[in-house]
């Protein structure tokens, strides 16, 4: 039995015919839409490498059945930069060495964008660490990741102030 679903992925509407309801959102992105920036780490909701924003909220795409997300708006790492201009969180990860091997980085960045949007951590590094605890980094780049999120949080807050001024 086939399931027709439509998703908006990085601003583009995609109509998709699923031949099996077992397909996760992660596998759909990687294997069928060729968006391989989102990584498959544990595939069990424990590592955060597969983090994407669905309807503006960060979730583990490995634990989401694609068929159940019919109609959703999905943002992946491929959709955050504007052309050659990096998203402030991407730029901050580079500036603060928030990575080593880079495998967890797309998930870290999507999680950080979600965290900043949630507005619960502010510029408290302890709350940032807590809010980022769903993203594991095998290389242990956590110090740089925390600094990057703090920095990006501050630059985004300033940009918002300028916009509302």
């Amino acid at each position, binding site marked *: *039995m086939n*399931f027709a679903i439509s998703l908006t992925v990085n601003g583009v509407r995609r109509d998709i015919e699923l031949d*099996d*309801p*077992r397909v*996760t959102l992660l596998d759909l992105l990687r294997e069928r839409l060729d968006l391989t920036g989102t990584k498959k780490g544990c*595939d*069990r*909701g424990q590592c*955060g490498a597969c*983090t994407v924003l669905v309807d503006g*909220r*960060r*979730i*583990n795409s490995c*634990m*989401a*059945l694609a*068929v*159940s997300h019919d109609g959703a708006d999905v943002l992946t790492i491929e959709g955050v930069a504007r052309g050659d201009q990096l998203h402030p969180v991407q730029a901050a990860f580079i500036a603060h060495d928030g990575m080593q091997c880079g495998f967890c980085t797309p998930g870290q960045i999507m*999680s950080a964008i*979600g*965290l900043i949007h*949630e507005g*619960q951590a502010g510029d408290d*590094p*302890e*709350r940032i*660490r*807590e*809010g*980022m*605890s*769903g*993203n594991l980094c095998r290389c242990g780049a956590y110090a740089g990741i925390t600094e990057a999120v703090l920095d990006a949080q501050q630059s985004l807050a300033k940009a918002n102030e300028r916009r509302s001024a």
Partner: protein
Amino acid sequence: MKSFDYVRPATVSDAVKAAAEPGAAYLAAGTNLLDLMKGGVTRPDRLVDVTRLPGLDRIETLPDGGIRIGALVRNSDLAHDPGFAKSYPAVAEALLSGASAQLRNAATVGGNLLQRTRCGYFYDTASACNKREPGTGCDAREGENRLHAVLGWSDACIATHPSDFCVPLVALDAVVEIEGRTGRREVALQALHRLPGDTPERENVLEPGDLIVALRLPAGASAFSAHARYVKVRERTSYAFAVVSAAAALRIERGTIREARLALGGVAAKPWRCRAAEEMLAGKGATRDAFAGAATAALADAKPSGDNQFKIELARRILVRALTLAAAGTPRRIPALPASPFSSASGALHVL
């Protein structure tokens, strides 16, 4: 993962009909169910997707002052709802101590109540497990069992219920609304989960097709808001299940405890209400001696199920800690956070 049929009914009654068939399971966020299906632990023939059912995603204040939470409300939405967190701070604190931000953004209230144990032998299909396959035995009894139950366990099963959310809820007399084949009924959360006995595969009182549609807290539950805490001990700072946890809620008038509510998590197959300890505290001063006496009473029937004698003393100390923090007053900001070793602030600024 075994293949399955997928249906997405438009009404609660259609969902109940579809899920009453043998081999069917409800799907909400799937944060626990998909994990179990990927491991072959649960092998449903049909998933009944309830995520589009209308009217189950609301948080409503009831005319009598209680609150009704739809089963599809996401964990993070409930915890960050300002009115809810103010009236039921220990519940918000428990929610935010569970899982990760990504999982809390997806996981639902109803799913949280029905999550399965994290016993490693239940998850490992090569191990004997009476819960997964009745009659096969329990490899946890002679296995790695330091995190297993110390209350209410049986020879057939020593698994614990992993929910944080349920611990303050059971202390506050939460009620579950269930839609089933014969209509709507209500069950006290305290009576939803079953102890294992000889039938650990029967984890709750739900019948085939039963769907949790809402959770209610009675009007009196917000009377504890000034003195309510949830304390969770885990083996790493964040994103881990509880070794032991406790919810404590007090109503204090002029230094005297008028009413106490206490529950433990991570110690049994269900969230564990400590009624005898609550009764001991009523009318007493909020003193360390009173708390220690209550904690002793709460664990009076505890016994180790394996290499976990330490959890009994740990549970007593966590109860005293939770009571002490509750007596000191609910912090202005919930969630209070666990303090990591990296915290630049000295002392336990963010609580534990």
